[in-house]
């Protein structure tokens, strides 16, 4: 578990216990991280930067124990936040924001993150999207393209909509059963309820189509819809338990 300490002068310190590099990279890449730093721990979804914003984050190939550059920004309220020259020694890492336009928020004195995050709806799904965004070309050893920013953004938008409905829905109702990359740069997002399986195919351009499979494996009926709207995707997910 890693613990993130922040102070009023916006110096951020990672105290590393068992957190590995890839996990850290993934976690830092979430807008949740930025939201926490900006003092909006209660509302991570107010920060909905495009999936591409963490693209500037790289691992220093010369060292497995340092992050070279992290740059994170959010357009909300014109706030801008960036990190630079991040050192990540074996047991302690310090991040000092290079620039911050807004000083209206205060950072929490100390909080835990990663495994101790509250039971947020769709948490694993959001993390999975971040994970998939890090795929490189030929991820399947057959020339597969990495998920496009458009596909990631579309999938993320659906997940955000579902997470905003958390107050009216149960977690099992909205949590995807599976999110997988497709070789053409698209994504497959699946929901499963009893014997019903809903597959949403997010194309490389961010478009949606659906396949609904109903019934057990021996007698399954399929229905397909092409080029559907985001609203239709939401409706299909929400009505899945009731069909």
């Amino acid at each position, binding site marked *: 578990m890693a613990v993130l300490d922040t102070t009023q002068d916006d110096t951020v310190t990672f105290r590393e216990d068992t957190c590995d590099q890839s996990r850290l990279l993934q976690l830092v890449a979430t807008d949740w991280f930025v939201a926490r730093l900006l003092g909006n721990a209660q509302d991570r979804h107010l920060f909905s930067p495009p999936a591409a914003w963490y693209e500037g984050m790289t691992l220093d190939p010369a060292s497995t124990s340092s992050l070279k550059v992290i740059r994170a920004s959010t357009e909300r309220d014109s706030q801008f936040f960036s990190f630079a020259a991040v050192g990540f020694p074996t047991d302690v890492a310090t991040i000092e924001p290079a620039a911050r336009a807004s000083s209206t928020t205060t950072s929490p004195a100390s909080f835990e993150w990663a495994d101790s995050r509250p039971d947020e709806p769709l948490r694993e799904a959001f993390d999975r999207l971040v994970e998939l965004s890090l795929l490189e070309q030929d991820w399947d050893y057959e020339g597969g393209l990495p998920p496009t920013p458009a596909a990631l953004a579309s999938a993320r938008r659906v997940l955000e*909509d579902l997470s*905003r*409905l*958390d107050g*009216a829905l149960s977690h099992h109702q909205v949590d995807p059963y599976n999110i997988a990359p497709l070789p053409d740069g698209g994504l497959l997002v699946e929901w499963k309820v009893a014997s019903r399986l809903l597959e949403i195919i997010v194309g490389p351009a961010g478009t949606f189509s659906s396949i609904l499979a109903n019934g057990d494996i021996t007698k399954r009926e399929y229905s397909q819809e092409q080029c559907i709207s985001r609203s239709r995707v*939401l*409706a299909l997910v929400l009505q899945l338990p*009731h069909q």
Partner: protein
Amino acid sequence: MLQLEVVVASGWLAAEDIVPVRALVSVLNRFGDFYEGSPLAIPLPENAPSEVPAVVLSNKLGNSRIEIARSRLNFRWTRPSTEGAPLEVIVGEFGQRMGAILEDLGQRPGRLGLFVARLFDREEPGTYLAKKYCNEHALSGPLNRPEGFEVHAHKVYKLSPEFVVNSWVRLKTAKRQGGDYDAIAIEQDLNTLGDLLQTARYDRADIVAFFDAAIRGLDEVIGRYFPELGGDRSA
């Protein structure tokens, strides 16, 4: 000129018979192309009044939204900064949508209502309203040149053969941009009787008919209060 500010069309159910998620699915399937903003579920305590919206869905512009509560549906339109819309069109669409969604849910409301708020610019609106509705004794005495002024009136009348309604009219001096009063806010609230909530059951055709009649009724009423506006009532 009258300027439309807010329109709210409401349907009340006698019991908490609306399942917000089911209503949301109906909205998304039927009107998802219009209400394409991000949906929002409002976490409510268990003892929250059943009329408090649990799910809200907006259009992309953010000026039209549907509010789904366990015993009530609201369709709300707020004037955007740059464009207006004919009142008849807004209310007509609201009636059609409400009828369709409640039909999907197998529910019939026991009460229907329409609220419309409009503004029109007027210099010294307090004096204007006082002169319009007060006698000489009042104008030469306590209501001599009032800056702010309000008139509220409530009537019960037969809107059409099918609908007996409460009609509230509230005329208030208003400030468009702070400073002095420079406008008159006209609020009209037309709703079927609360006493009938438990017994009346309006189907889809009734709902559409109510809102068609209500918009004509509002127009007629405002014409009586402000005949000087002529035909310019519903913009």
